[in-house]
């Protein structure tokens, strides 16, 4: 499935639509270059779960956790593997704890190191640049 977004606000609206289709235990991978709208997308998605705290880039912290009041998706784990140099660093993050949590929705930015290792189905959203602020979002399910 593909969406065209003309503005960051539209990216947030698309995220809110995608949020409707998600369930606890789901994993989302977000791929796209710097400034392509990944964190904006997560902001829209987390807002759709009525979390009103700040949703900021986890690049430095690597992982942010947002508790929600949703009955099944009780927390959203926002991961950013941008700073990781190789797959050996993944085990220091105890990501499997989140990936196996039946009450968590896990969203991973810069997932390329995790993708070959993940043992469960995931959805990948790719952010491509169009003209100006416009972006093309492509949503694919794996496997």
């Amino acid at each position, binding site marked *: 499935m593909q969406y065209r977004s003309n503005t960051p606000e539209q990216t947030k609206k698309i995220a809110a639509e995608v949020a409707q289709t998600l369930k606890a235990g789901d994993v989302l991978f977000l791929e796209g270059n*710097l*400034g392509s709208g990944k*964190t904006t997308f997560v902001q829209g998605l987390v807002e759709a779960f009525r979390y009103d705290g700040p949703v*900021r880039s986890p*690049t*430095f912290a690597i992982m942010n956790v947002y508790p929600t009041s949703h009955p099944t998706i009780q927390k959203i784990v926002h991961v950013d593997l941008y700073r990781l140099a190789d797959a050996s*660093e993944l085990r*220091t*993050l105890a990501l499997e704890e989140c990936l196996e949590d039946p009450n968590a929705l896990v969203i991973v930015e810069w997932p390329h190191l995790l993708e070959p290792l993940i043992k469960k189905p995931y959805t990948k959203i790719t952010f491509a640049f169009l003209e100006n602020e416009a972006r093309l979002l492509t949503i694919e399910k794996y496997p």
Partner: protein
Amino acid sequence: MRVLGIESSCDETAIALINKEGDQIVVEKKFLASQVKTHAVYGGVVPEVAAREHADLVFTLLQQSGISRDGSDVDVIAVTAGPGLIPALRVGVELGKSLAWAWKPGGAGSGFAGKPLVAVNHLEGHIYSVWLTKEMNVPQFPALCLLVSGGHTELILMKTHGVYELIGMTRDDAAGEAFDKVAKLLKLGYPGGPEISRAASKGNPTAINFPRPMLDSKDFDFSFSGLKTAVRICVESQQGHSVEDIAASFQAAVVETLVTKTLRAVSEYHPASVILAGGVAANSSLRASLQQVLSHQNETVTFHAPDLSLTGDNAVMIAVAGAFRAEKEEFVDPLTLIADANLSLVK
């Protein structure tokens, strides 16, 4: 009072021992996990990966620091309890709890079964890094703190020791993160702060008019994500700007945004002092601009920035913040203390 500080909130594990007697604070020992010699395991210097694994390193770190095995030279243990990355935070918190549990209390007549333990907020630690200036020129309250690092961009009003109000923060990327990502776009090295600063010193800061995001918003929040994107578009459009000019123009946009918002907060909250802390406090352009503009606008407000060696994450600042908490006897129970990824500065 001798305070052992333990910091492990993200990439680095560090311990430090300070001695605070009245207003005098002396740093007696400071060690970083990335400096520990563990030839057997890593064959030399510990890479960043391993520094984040910390757990393998903490006892080697303690041993090499020369802190007495029985804790007899330590009165209080101070540990970063959050915010940060949970697997990393846990290492320091569990170490602090274990030592507090095992070590005998110092000083006669102490009512505690173990060594007194204090929990320090990582952001609070950064703020206290300015209490270590050699001139004994400490901030007065209320103090307005601009905390800028790879993970944080916050304006905090410190009313007195341990009492904070968050008045603004970044809504997306931290300022230090913007430096790192722009450095990568410009194919400069990591960490990006010093690299951008170096390139910027040879460039023209008015060459490109990058956006100053949220400069006119009424609140004290920041946003650096759009600025990063503006730099990317500038780089990819190949308009012939030099790396030095882009770096200088980007740095000017960040500095102007931070300084303008801080000044506006000064007008609103009338602090006695302004504190600049965190990794980006090492940026000489930001330090100089903020100091200059402050002294120009308001001669009564004092300006405080940490020694360059204390701008990044370290355990000395945790020990100092912990010493002030210990003076108020704000001790925590090792049985119940847990690492909190989202630990708030405001109670």
